[in-house]
């Protein structure tokens, strides 16, 4: 029975068009059955965020996303009172006969509560997937606040009382390793490292996402990317860039890479002037390694 569910996860992910490998499947499976948050690290553009999206679709539930940034505080993540609406409500009732107590009750009701992602996740009607994206961008104070919520699954709002989670969400935390995360957070999570994909995996991703692509072209693109990533670049291109490139080239009905083509489309995969220079300088070397005979030579 349990093993079934591993294969189940794999086919669910595959069914959603997400090409996985065994370690990803295992981590996702364990996070699900152990009800633990899953911490995913890895370079940019390898599909960390995508896992959460696919998981939500596969489990047929909603994805609630909390995008972290420098300066994100508890208010933005939990809830805020809709102050302006409350004020208007009071103004409207100024001439009415309601007592202060009654007024209090109305303005601190649910309709004036602006739910932010964490509160949304807790009060959701079925187990949602809560994606906490790029946690390393948020401050450390926020991280410890998050720990508290993730361990208790309850939020107290002074005016209303404590709200307990009806359904505990499946939490996915991603990080780009801009800053080290606290030991406490790591201890509570399962850990998954996703690296740039192996050649085979990338090839199947390309074929999956760009079904019309020429077989030879797809292979050449993936080989080229593999070699390009070995170069010393400011920003190493991820899968997203590979896909963009594949999509663009196959859209132009091209079936073979050549130097001129690569030169004119480098901007799709490299987003830094210095990187483009580096790539252009070593284009012949790259082509040699990829094993493509350039038409120009």
């Amino acid at each position, binding site marked *: 029975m*349990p*093993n079934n569910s*591993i294969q189940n996860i794999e086919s669910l992910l595959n069914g959603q068009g997400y090409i996985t490998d*065994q*370690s990803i499947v*295992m*981590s996702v*499976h*364990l996070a699900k*059955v*152990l009800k*633990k948050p899953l911490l995913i*690290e890895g370079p940019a553009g390898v599909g960390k965020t995508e896992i959460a999206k696919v998981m939500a679709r596969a489990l047929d539930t909603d994805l609630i996303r909390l995008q972290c940034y*420098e300066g994100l*505080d508890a*208010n933005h993540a939990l809830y805020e009172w809709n*102050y*302006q609406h409350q*004020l208007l409500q009071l*103004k409207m009732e100024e001439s009415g006969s309601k007592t202060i107590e009654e007024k209090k009750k109305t303005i601190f009701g649910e309709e004036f509560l602006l739910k932010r992602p964490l509160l949304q996740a807790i009060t959701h009607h079925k187990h949602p997937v809560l994606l906490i994206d790029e946690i390393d961008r948020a401050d450390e104070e926020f991280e410890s606040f998050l720990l508290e919520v993730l361990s208790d699954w309850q939020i107290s709002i002074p005016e209303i009382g404590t709200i307990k989670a009806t359904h505990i969400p499946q939490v996915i935390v991603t990080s*780009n*390793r*801009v*800053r*080290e995360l606290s*030991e406490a957070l*790591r*201890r509570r*999570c*399962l*850990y*998954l*490292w996703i690296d740039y994909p192996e050649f085979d995996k990338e090839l199947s991703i390309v074929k999956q996402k760009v079904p019309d692509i020429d077989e030879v072209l797809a292979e050449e693109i993936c080989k080229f990317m593999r070699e390009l990533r070995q170069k*010393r670049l*400011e*920003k190493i291109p991820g899968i997203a860039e590979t896909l963009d490139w594949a999509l663009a080239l196959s859209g132009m009905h091209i079936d073979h890479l050549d130097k001129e083509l690569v030169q004119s489309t480098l901007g799709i995969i490299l987003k830094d002037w210095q990187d483009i220079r580096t790539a252009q300088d070593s284009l012949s070397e790259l082509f040699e390694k990829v094993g493509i005979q350039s038409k120009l030579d």
Partner: protein
Amino acid sequence: MASENLIERQTALSSHVVSFCRYLRKHKFKLGASDEALALQALSKVVLSDSEVFRLTLRSTLVKNLPQLILFDQHFEKYWEELAKAINSKKKTVEEETLKKKTLADEAQKRGQASLQALKSWLYGNQSSEEKEVPGYSFGKTIQQKDFSLFNSEEMSEVNNLVKSIGKILANRHNRRYQRGKSGDLFDLKSSIQKNMRKGGDIVEMAFKKKQKRKLRIVLLCDISKSMDLYSRFLIQFIYAFQNTYTKIETFIFGTELNRVTEQLRRQEYTEALEALRENFYDWSGGTRIGECLADFNKNYTSKIINQNTIFLIMSDGLDTGDSNLIAPNLKRIQRKANKVIWLNPIAGNPDYKPSTKGMKEALPFIDVFTSGHNLESLRKVVSVFGKSNQNHFRKLQD
């Protein structure tokens, strides 16, 4: 019946898992009982069709970060290999293994003894006790201009406190203004009223203010070779007084290799942190390889922590024992990305100093501010250029 089998097998398994965890702990994995329990719980949720499933299950539950991930695979293989070799004497081999490792480490330690001494003196140097009364600027000019290395050991702790407190005073000065905004710590009455005048005087929109946090980040690279240890220590203390003013301070120390110590310095009291560092870096062998360390920095950190708000401070005498051809190109890359590159060279405190080493000469074009940092006064000057723009590209803070 199937479930009976499962339980039986798991009791055998769980003892293996427990001793494997023990083995990992000996290799610096921080595993608690809860991690063990989690691993066992996870194993009960999968069907162990092959060893790969077993490995992945343990890896998902016991590994908490990337360096561990790499180590885990090695340890896993080793451990089970040993186990297969001698199931009965399993404990013995594991112990022997660790014993062997220990002696190896001992030897390495002995070899590095001389340099260890240097490192020790660096790390133990700061024995300052409690914070003394914050002094003003009344301290004699002599003290502020005296080279750090000329103080005797009794004066040292006093100078230490002085460095810290002057740092704090300067830090406060950089942080007196408030910033207005829609959220913050303090209610801003003035702008609230201003904002709401047009709405008939009712406070519809609230305004707040908070202490402005400078967006500047500071990255420190400190040479801790023997000749530099003292100056680096003062620099780190001085800069850390600013940690509430600037958003981020990253600290690296280097000699033959580069080490990021930001976390250690943040988690612990300063003295404790340095002591812990001493434990970790026992294999320090003499010499300074600036070029290699800068290259390493570029490879692993530049794109992540250097941006236009970053001030890159490097403290080194420029006496390089490595490949000095590496210095200039790597520094160039950092300068291109950073707000400012400041090089502190204590030898430059000498009025007759001229950059003579090849590495230093080549590095000069890629340095925005070049100064000595050998006494209090020059440290203060360093901070004074933090917020300034880079109009004159290269300048020497000498007088």
